[in-house]
């Protein structure tokens, strides 16, 4: 029985364990080995290897897919910190390819064009751990039920606008708080609404948080943004376009790392925010043609 459970879980403790090691850290999008070196030097805990940062994916249009394995391998060879890479929602063949390359985490990401409109990847089938985006508690729990070992807010990638990440984090927090007030029958109904087993809801209620690590992602562009998300209860920060679309990526990367560690220390935050150049320009959500956070369910 235990063995069966272990093989089904495919070492869930090892998968969530790596996410635990990333806590309090910043994971940075990089498109070259040189970027990866800048990220590592700034103090990133991991890098996300991809061909284009989200703001460029937005601009390019067309179908966005998994990156070229050659690029991912180059970045893996160039850095000693963990390397993540993205697959399209539901594209389990891309996941198999990334697993064979030995990437440390797979992001089943709405930033790429979805490959399946009905099924996300069954993540229990893999030895490599997965991180998935969410806009609220139900979505987070559906992904965890499918085997995700780490969750992040979807936010709105490539905009440099933190408002959606804040909305998603606050929604998760409010929905977790609401569980505490529910009777058993209300909890049953909520589980049906969320389309997850009621046991999972009971676990969240008991813990008062998600059962896996929850990072902020999608629109974080300044040290203050990182502090805001950490103070809202995130475990760490993903920065996509925010670093390499700023005017001084080296300074911005380091400042966001320092702000994530010292997120409660406003004096320190003021110090690290000083003279780091212009953040990425950013976009208003209302002006977007495509909302990436509406991909997936």
């Amino acid at each position, binding site marked *: 029985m235990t063995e069966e459970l272990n093989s089904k879980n495919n*070492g869930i*403790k*090892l998968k969530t*364990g*790596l996410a*635990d*090691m*990333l*806590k*309090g*850290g910043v994971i940075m999008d990089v498109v070259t080995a040189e970027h990866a070196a800048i990220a*590592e030097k700034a*103090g*990133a*805990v*991991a890098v996300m290897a991809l061909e284009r940062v989200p703001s460029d994916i937005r601009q390019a249009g067309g179908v966005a897919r998994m990156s070229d394995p050659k690029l991912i391998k180059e970045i893996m060879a160039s850095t*000693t*910190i*963990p390397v993540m890479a993205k697959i399209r929602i539901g594209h389990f063949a891309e996941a198999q390819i990334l*697993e064979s390359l*030995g*990437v*440390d*985490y797979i992001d089943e990401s709405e930033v790429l064009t979805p490959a399946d409109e009905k099924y996300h990847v069954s993540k229990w089938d893999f*030895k*490599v*751990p997965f991180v998935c985006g969410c806009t609220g508690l139900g979505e987070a729990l559906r992904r965890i039920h499918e085997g995700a070992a780490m969750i992040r807010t979807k936010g709105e990638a490539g905009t440099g606008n933190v408002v959606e990440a804040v909305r998603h984090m606050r929604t998760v927090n409010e929905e977790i708080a609401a569980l505490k007030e529910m009777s058993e029958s209300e909890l049953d109904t909520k589980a049906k609404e969320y389309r997850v087993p009621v046991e999972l809801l009971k676990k969240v209620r008991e813990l008062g948080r998600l059962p896996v690590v929850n990072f902020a992602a999608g629109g974080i562009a300044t040290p203050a943004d990182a502090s805001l998300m950490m103070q809202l209860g995130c475990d760490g920060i993903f920065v996509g376009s925010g670093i390499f679309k700023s005017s001084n990526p080296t300074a911005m990367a380091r400042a966001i*790392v*320092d702000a994530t*560690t*010292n997120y409660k*220390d406003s004096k320190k935050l003021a110090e690290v925010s000083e003279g780091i150049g212009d953040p990425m320009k950013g976009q208003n959500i209302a002006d977007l043609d495509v909302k990436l956070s509406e991909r997936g369910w």
Partner: protein
Amino acid sequence: MVKVGVLALQGDFREHIWRLKALNVDAFEVRKIDELDAVDGLIIPGGESTTIGKLIRRNGLTDLLRRYHKPIWGTCAGAILLAKDIEDSDQFKLGLMNITIRRNDYGRQIDSFSQDIELNINDQRTSFNAIFIRAPRITKLGESVKSLAECNGDAVMVIEKNRLATTFHPELTDMNTVHKFFVELIVKQQNH
């Protein structure tokens, strides 16, 4: 009652604090000099060793930690930071223990594993489920260093006076054995 600090710059410091609280020990997050001064011993948690090293420097803790004489314990990334030598790396280190260590020597994340090992502490052998995540390997032990547990022939828990290193993560389990052992080290030092 002893006060145990957990370096809270990055990594799984929260899990260490939970384990200490399960033992009814006062546990504190340490990010600054005054917080470090206030505790009787320090745990450097798992995390990313290059990141934690940089943050130690940027938060002005380098000198204090390199001269640290109270009990100190590093898990995984923490063990790397305690080592005198890190093979093939010029990254920041504290160099407090006479060990040589090699990062990620068991492989990448897909090679992470857990295994039951035997801890040899206080003249007793205790079984422990050891979790290794992108773990480093201790490749050389100085003469004054004693191994307290092995896994497939590698030393995975070593002690040198009041300094302890584990390449696995006792904080990710619900077993308190190693945390209890470290707290006893602190108590012993205080009674001297």
